[in-house]
């Protein structure tokens, strides 16, 4: 395997890791107004992801930096092209991040309600935008001969892009609900399970339509296999939720996200950002990649560090494995 192929896989791996992990953070944030009947409930929900949300978010920082190092042209064209969409994304992620940290540092209901809404919007907006962005990456965008984006924000809001956004929005919401079912106890767990049943139907329809659209636009054996596995895992996850197999439901949801995002990367390959203006202007793993030496250096770093990273992050999840419920929430602010 050539190094630029390997780095296409590593970048894909990092984004998939990001979506699997921050995906349920987004879902938990979106669930606040649905499941949080009072402040204690909302604190239960937030504390399910309390110790891990920022390390989950770090995956996107690492994915972005790795994209920069391994495919500078891709990074440059993508980030400058999707300018306003990324501005919205950054504003949302900033709002979410500070809201987690700051909501508990004041006692007035108004203070907390303000930050709660920042968490909800700061979770839902990125969940939507990531899907819009990735759908457009796969479908291609207007790029000129210098690989410079010539569209606007509204170019990205095409039917396929929006459907992709709705897919990530609904799938991450469902992912977060399964996570809540897994990580909480008591009444809130039951409410999450019931809500997941309803969200599950919507997510399945949207995800199936979007993935089939993607598959027929970019037919490949690998794409077909990944799409089928994603669809089966999504349906099975809901069956597991009905059967109250919480761990199984969550694990199957992880499989769904891995294979669904994997199907997108399979549809993209060997392009990294196709041009709809002229296929000759497309960015590919050949013309967008770093030099052989840089990729070699980065491969050593990634090969040595990633197993280590996975090991200590797994340990973190093990340390914080206990379920959270109302009786765990101390009174007052901290």
């Amino acid at each position, binding site marked *: 395997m050539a190094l630029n192929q390997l780095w296409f896989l590593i970048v894909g791996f990092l984004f998939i890791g990001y979506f699997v992990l921050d995906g349920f953070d987004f879902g938990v944030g979106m669930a606040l107004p649905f499941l949080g009947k009072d402040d204690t409930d909302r604190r239960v929900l937030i504390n399910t992801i309390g110790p891990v949300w920022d390390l989950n978010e770090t995956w996107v920082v690492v994915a972005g930096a790795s994209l920069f190092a391994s495919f*500078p042209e891709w990074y440059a064209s993508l980030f400058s092209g999707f300018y306003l969409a990324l501005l919205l994304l950054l504003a949302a992620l900033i709002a979410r991040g500070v809201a987690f940290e700051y909501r508990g540092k004041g006692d007035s209901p108004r203070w907390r309600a303000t930050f709660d809404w920042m968490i909800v919007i700061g979770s839902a907006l990125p969940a939507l935008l990531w899907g819009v962005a990735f759908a457009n990456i796969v479908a291609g965008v207007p790029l000129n001969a210098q690989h410079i984006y010539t569209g606007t924000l509204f170019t990205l809001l095409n039917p396929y892009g929006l459907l992709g956004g709705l897919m990530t929005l609904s799938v991450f919401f469902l992912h977060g609900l399964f996570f809540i079912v897994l990580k909480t106890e008591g009444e809130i767990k039951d409410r999450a399970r019931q809500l997941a049943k309803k969200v599950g139907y919507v997510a399945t329809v949207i995800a199936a339509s979007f993935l089939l659209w993607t598959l027929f636009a970019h037919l490949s054996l690998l794409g077909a296999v990944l799409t089928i596995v994603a669809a089966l895992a999504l349906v099975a996850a809901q069956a597991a939720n009905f059967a109250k197999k919480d761990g199984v439901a969550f694990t199957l949801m992880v499989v769904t996200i891995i294979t669904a995002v994997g199907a997108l990367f399979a549809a993209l390959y060997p392009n990294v950002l196709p041009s709809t203006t002229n296929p000759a202007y497309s960015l590919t793993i050949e013309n967008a990649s770093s030099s052989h030496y840089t990729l070699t250096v*980065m491969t050593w770093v990634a090969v040595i560090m990633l197993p280590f990273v996975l090991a200590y992050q797994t340990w973190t999840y093990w340390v914080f494995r206990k379920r959270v419920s109302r009786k765990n929430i101390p009174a007052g602010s901290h």
Partner: protein
Amino acid sequence: MHMLAAQNLWGLDPLTLSRWQFGLTTVYHFLFVPLTIGMVFLVAIMQTAWVRTNNEKWLKLTKLFGKLFLINFAMGLVTGLVQEFQFGMNWSDYSRFVGDVFGAPLAMEGLLAFFFEATFIGLWIFGWGRLSKKVHLATIWITNLGVWLSAYFILAANAFMQHPVGFQLNEVKHRAELTDIGAVLTNIVALNQFPHTVTASIMYSGAVIVAVAAYHLKRKQYLDSMYTGLRYGLWATLIGGIGTVLSGDGLGLAMVQTQPMKMAAAEALYKTSSGYDASFSLFSWGTPDGHSEIFSVRIPYLLSFLSTHTLNGTVEGLNDLNAQYQHLYGAGDYMPIIWLTYWSFRWMIGLGVLAMLVALVGLVLTRKGRVQLPNWAWNTAIWASPLGLLAISIGWMFTEMGRQPWIVFSLMKTSAGVSPGITALDVLLSIVVFTLIYGILAVVEFKILRKAIDAGPDVLLEDQRDDADQLTVAY
């Protein structure tokens, strides 16, 4: 070269706006970073002292300053995300040109340092009571390692912009390509910039500890833990300050060697001078361009000594350097904005020295357990705390503005790095959004810090005595 013409708005072009945006967001981001770099180390020492001595006052200090560290850390984290994205968003031609080299330290920062920081800081915050004392102590030290590694990698990336090494130009692809990662990571600028950044951060973080302790001592509360905190903070400020001076000297030598124009600009030295004439101007009234100087205080030989560590060394002047660069890189003006470099260099040094002096006087006044001081003394300790931060901010303005007109010294001008596809409206919109968000966050952040400081150290220990069922730390 670009297909798309720059799209202006009210006379503002994307380049000017992008420069302002980068300046604003970076200065804002770096208001939080020094406290992270310095405080994580100072808190790790506090916690070590507690584990070693079992003296509860060290636990109180660990908890209080750990809390301030975390409130601050959240701001550094979210504003740091903007930093990484805007290379691609606003400076895509720069990213295309240097990505092969510059991307590597950024990705290493992510893989080696950010994951470390984010994971172990979570374990530290939420691990009280869940991890054994020693393992929990290890998590703050590993967080420290992650924070400092991250600082090193980003400084190595910045050092490439100041003094590009370890690369060759690929004429076909119009880009710099990495040829020696070891050279990039041991760039003489990075090797000198790192200790300067870390020690200055410790100096400033020490002053923050002093300010918090002074706030309580002025109110005659928490005397035991806060007196210890005060002395600890004063020593940290002084020692950090001494380290800053020593490492600054090394950085100055590296700067003369790699970017002589920046040193000449720091001194507004137009004519190449040697020995007695290579004087350091402490203060000048009039314009510092040397043509209409009305009054100035100069120390003979000092500039020669700072630049070469000899008394009769020669320091190149702006005019000669500009002529050299025109010969090397073509017609143009290669001088940065001289008044800005001249004054920022002085303010950086002056404010840093002032912070050290305050600490030195504080150490003398509060020796042998003295806490009966007049209010003005406590107020001075409180209001002196931002001095180090101001010095750091201004120092970075000097470093970055002194590199102009280059974005990568000798390879690419700032004007060539901006994204060709973005419009002035795009950038203006993002400046407005970030300014609004950052402005609101600054107010909220200040309120929360103030509240945490007000609450004092004792309340934080109650967390530990909670019902066993309850989370010791919860959002």
